[in-house]
């Protein structure tokens, strides 16, 4: 019966049940009507995300398109092996509480497997000590599953400093001295993105980057050979890890995007028609659709 306790879903059901029991009677007539439209959107979009997540966890397989960057990573690792130079991996400069860092580590686990297969050399400085610990665990497991536990050396995964520019100075120095053949940046980056990308470019390394920090994407896109843009980072980590939780919710998010696209298109066409035809009925319908997505003031 211990299992029941640990099962998040039954635990959650209990929480919801108790809360509803306490809150429902007084809450029903206190529902804030201004937020009724948001509530409906939440039910539809949130419901879809949960639906697909649960289905995936029960073993339903969902398709995820192959992201070109994945092939590029394999190629780049091969190139490093041929040249006999290291592969540099940076999982962003943020801590583990950032989902992008988690995605970076997830991607690392399959990259490390490839590196172990090819017998290439992996170098991974980190800017947070927790990221180092997790990365060591992850890479060790990858080497094990590739059948090369002997090749694993944890000293190549190490913590440098929390301070942004201190870390940048170290990584830059490493790149210029050791000239890695391949540089992979996956995670959350700030201003350092441009410094890494430029230094990597100047030493002629093949560079593959992925981040969901929109402000930093231009530097990666312009200076790297391949860049995973925004959500592609998470999709790649889902694709590579095949974790049903990630794949299911990605599918649910796609539903959300389809929902958004449908109503943007429908609403725009309706308002345009109403505008052109000057018909009152159409105008009312289009206003109603628009009203669904407008925040109502008191």
């Amino acid at each position: 019966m211990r299992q029941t306790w640990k099962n998040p879903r039954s635990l959650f059901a209990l929480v919801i049940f108790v809360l509803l029991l306490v809150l429902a009677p007084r809450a029903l007539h206190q529902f804030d009507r201004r937020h009724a439209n948001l509530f409906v959107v939440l039910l539809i979009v949130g419901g879809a995300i949960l639906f697909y997540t649960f289905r995936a966890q029960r073993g339903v397989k969902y398709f995820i398109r192959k992201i070109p960057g994945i092939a590029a990573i394999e190629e780049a690792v091969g190139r490093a092996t041929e040249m006999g130079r290291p592969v540099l991996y940076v999982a962003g400069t943020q801590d583990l509480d950032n989902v992008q860092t988690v995605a970076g580590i997830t991607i690392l686990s399959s990259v490390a497997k490839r590196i172990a297969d090819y017998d290439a050399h992996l170098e991974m400085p980190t800017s947070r000590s927790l990221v180092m610990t997790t990365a060591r665990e992850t890479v060790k497991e990858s080497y094990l599953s590739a059948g090369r536990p002997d090749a694993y050396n944890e000293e190549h995964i190490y913590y440098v400093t929390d301070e942004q520019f201190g870390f940048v100075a170290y990584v830059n120095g490493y790149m210029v001295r050791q000239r890695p053949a391949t540089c992979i940046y996956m995670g959350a980056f700030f201003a350092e993105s441009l410094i890494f990308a430029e230094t990597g470019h100047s030493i002629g390394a093949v560079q593959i980057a992925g981040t969901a920090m929109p402000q930093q994407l231009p530097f990666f896109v312009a200076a790297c050979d391949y860049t995973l843009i925004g959500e592609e980072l998470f999709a790649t980590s889902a694709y590579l890890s095949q974790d049903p939780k990630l794949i299911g919710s990605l599918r649910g998010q796609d539903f959300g995007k389809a929902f958004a696209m449908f109503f943007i298109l429908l609403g725009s066409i309706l308002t345009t028609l109403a505008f052109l035809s000057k018909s009152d009925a159409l105008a009312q319908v289009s206003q109603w659709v628009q009203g669904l997505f407008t925040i109502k003031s008191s």
Partner: protein
Amino acid sequence: MTLGPWLEMWVGALLTLMILSFLYRDNPFYRFAEHLFVGVSAAYWMVEAFWTTLIPNLFGKLYPPMVAFVLPALAKNPPQISRIIPLLFGVLLLLRLVPRFAHWSRMAMALAIGFSAGTNLVRYLESDFTSQIGQSIRPLVVTQPGFSLGGTFSALVVVLGTLSGLVYFFFSREHKGAFGRVSRFGIYVLMVSFGAAFGYTVMARISLLTGRMEILGRWITHGFQFPG
């Protein structure tokens, strides 16, 4: 100029030069300044959090007489016993520093994450999803007051650009055929917005350098007039 500000100006200018020396190459002066920065900034955040949040919002509410020596204005307020809860969670968080009890800090983390998840869920739903859909619904034909070709074209670009950008972020379908072409257009739209972001970032960085150079200029013109 009196001694205090004069000293501040000199220390500030020398530290500025130490950081700028990084442009030539990494060197001990830069590393000294960098490590100084790490120490000062960590303590700075800690001190300000203590005096501006913990004292008035935690202790000043939990038991006002306790903070009477710094905030006499609050001393007569009634104590709020419920503040014992955040105090408890705060102590739990600090247990992270004691390896044996480190896992207790998860309770405080859990509260913080629950707060972020609960508020983010509804705020992102409202501002970044629903409202964004609402703002995208616009007539595709623009008159001002006669038919405007430019306005219509812009309205089309916004709606089609947003839609194709969303198509690019679609993962559960192969990007082939018509779908693939739309997604191709989507990536072009994204590239132009990255170009805009790039231009703006360049602007921002230059502005910061200009500000710094002004300060150095003031040091060169005023710093050598010794206080007397």
